């Protein structure tokens, strides 16, 4: 039952849909790339010397405050930040990301119970980072660390490694 009128009409409709679709896709692709892909980073992974080994005691965690340079968007910023250091043996340390793995609060070391305690929702971690109580879903995050010439270096750019 196609008359010249109905074929013309369906041609119009088909073209409208096709061209609108093409324009939408052409705009959506760069938009998705722009919004979803991570920007190119200009940072190399950085080992930072944060303290001397002589300042640590085995079994006694210390919160070390240090300066680090970081790229924040379009800016290089130097900022104060911290990490919890635990000397495990004579020549070995573990560095913890200072944010609770539950919701990111700053936890602290409670010397009397010898555990890390988070004040927000009551998560408790043992000295080796394991969850002993509370809602924390995983052990404390560790920073890669190493000891060189009596100094402790950490690499806080890759905080994903778990205890």
């Amino acid at each position, binding site marked *: 039952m196609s008359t010249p009128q109905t074929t013309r009409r369906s041609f119009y409709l088909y*073209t409208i849909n096709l061209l609108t679709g093409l324009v939408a896709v052409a705009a959506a692709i760069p938009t998705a790339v*722009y919004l979803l892909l991570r920007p*190119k980073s200009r940072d190399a992974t950085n080992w930072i010397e944060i303290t001397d080994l002589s300042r640590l005691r085995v079994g006694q965690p210390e919160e070390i405050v240090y300066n680090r340079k970081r790229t924040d968007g379009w800016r290089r910023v130097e900022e104060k930040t911290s990490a919890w250091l635990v000397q495990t043996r004579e020549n070995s340390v573990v560095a913890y990301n200072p944010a609770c793995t539950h919701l990111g609060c700053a936890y602290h070391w409670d010397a009397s119970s010898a555990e890390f305690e988070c004040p927000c929702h009551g998560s408790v971690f043992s000295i080796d980072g394991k969850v002993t109580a509370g809602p924390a879903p995983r052990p404390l995050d560790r920073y890669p660390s190493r000891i060189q010439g009596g100094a402790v270096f950490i690499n806080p750019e890759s905080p994903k490694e778990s205890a």
Partner: protein
Amino acid sequence: MLRAIPKFIDERTGMISAIRHFLDEDIPASAGWHQVLGSVALFAFLLQIFTGFLLALNYAPTPGEAWDSLRYIVTQVAAGSIIRAMHHWGASLMIIVVVLHMAQTFLWGAYKKPREATWIAGVLLLLLTLAFGLSGYLLTWDNRAYWGTIVTTRIMGLAPGGSVLLRMLGAEGGGIGRVAFARFYAAHVTLLPLLTLGLIVLHVYLVRKHGVTPAPGDELLAKKKFFPEQVFRDTVAIFVWCVALGFMVALVKVPLGRIADPTDTSYVPRPEWYFLFLFQFLKFFQGPLEVFGAVVLPGIAVAALALMPFIDRSAVVKIQRRFAAISVACVAALGWTALTATAVATTPRQPDEDGTVEAAAWQRIPASQLAGIGVFRRENCSNCHTPGRSQPAPDLTAIVVDKDANWMKNHFKTLSDMEIGALVQLLTKRTDDTTEACLKAPDEAVRGAMIYHANQCSSCHTLNGEGGDVGPVLNGLRLRHDREWVKAHFSAPDKFTPGSEMPAFNFNPDDLERITNYVMSIPKL
């Protein structure tokens, strides 16, 4: 099931009926391809809002940082340079469509009674479009943006009440600072879009109220429907516009110059291409007449444009009989083209550093320090002074050496005074740049710097902030001269620059290559 969804929505909101009703407009039998431009302009505007929003997600609207963040967008953010180019070329192509839309309306006499208000709203929309261009021009905060806006605000200052306008823009006193920048940004992303959207609604409402302008004799023919025939034409036109935009984005790089430098007196500002005619026009008016060229005549032109329906009151709309209108349009087009072409032809070639390319550390440090790196490498100092280790000797890239020149003379013994001088510069003025350069500077550049240092070029020339002021600063030499000129100049400065006090240097071919490459590689600061 799927059919039930529109029905469900329509029963509760009436939106689908409303859209149907909107598309079901009667249009004259003569409606056709010449009437698609308004839809294209509307689409262009909506796309500008969209790409502008995307850019704002990664943009810091303050002087200085604006440039940093834009460079971040075009060099680091994925597809950032595409989104920026879409916004930049989208603006230019929108101006073209808006002007063509106006020209069509003018030539077809579509502004005549009862459509005067539609026309005036359109003229205001044209002015708003230009205001977008003007305010957006500053937001890149490169030299072009800064100096172009300085000139624009000075021109605004000439207008009656101009000083009040400048105070409102935060640009009083001749400079563009944080306050002015914030206001240009605020206007660009809040005030102008809202005004434009409001006026577009009014404009489209008036078009619907009066109907699409019929051609003479149309009244007797049966009406057509807007949907789907005219919607099809609009869609095709929008698609063609998008293809043009795609070509511009893919093929023409949008420049980002060096960060705005209010002390750079050598920069010759030029406005965006669609304002070049005004810039050229202004040249005819000097001294006390300037206010005429800058404000009075453009003001009269805009007023005449807005009041066109009241100036031309004849009822004639048949295009074949609109000699006067066609003549006016032709004269305007010719005048615009001639002025723009003259402005383009008389614009000095003005090369600038590409702001998206960051100079490497070795391109930023003084030649003496780079020469010091050369001595450091040649003498294999790093055999003992190992980077990253303090044993057996200190890591010289990580500390500031506090020994004095005499101590070093003794320590280095075998080296010439010149070489010791270079090492002293390197070791006592350590920065993050020198550290990075120590590790990464290419050997050829280091050797070039050693030649530069050994021939004491810095006693007359300044390079990266070090040296005398007898000769010209060598930063950005590559913008002023080509390689061959520089190479030939060494052996006979007098020949190229009459009266030059520079002695002739006859380097061996290898050294000539190296020093030429070196001085040509140092960007303008």
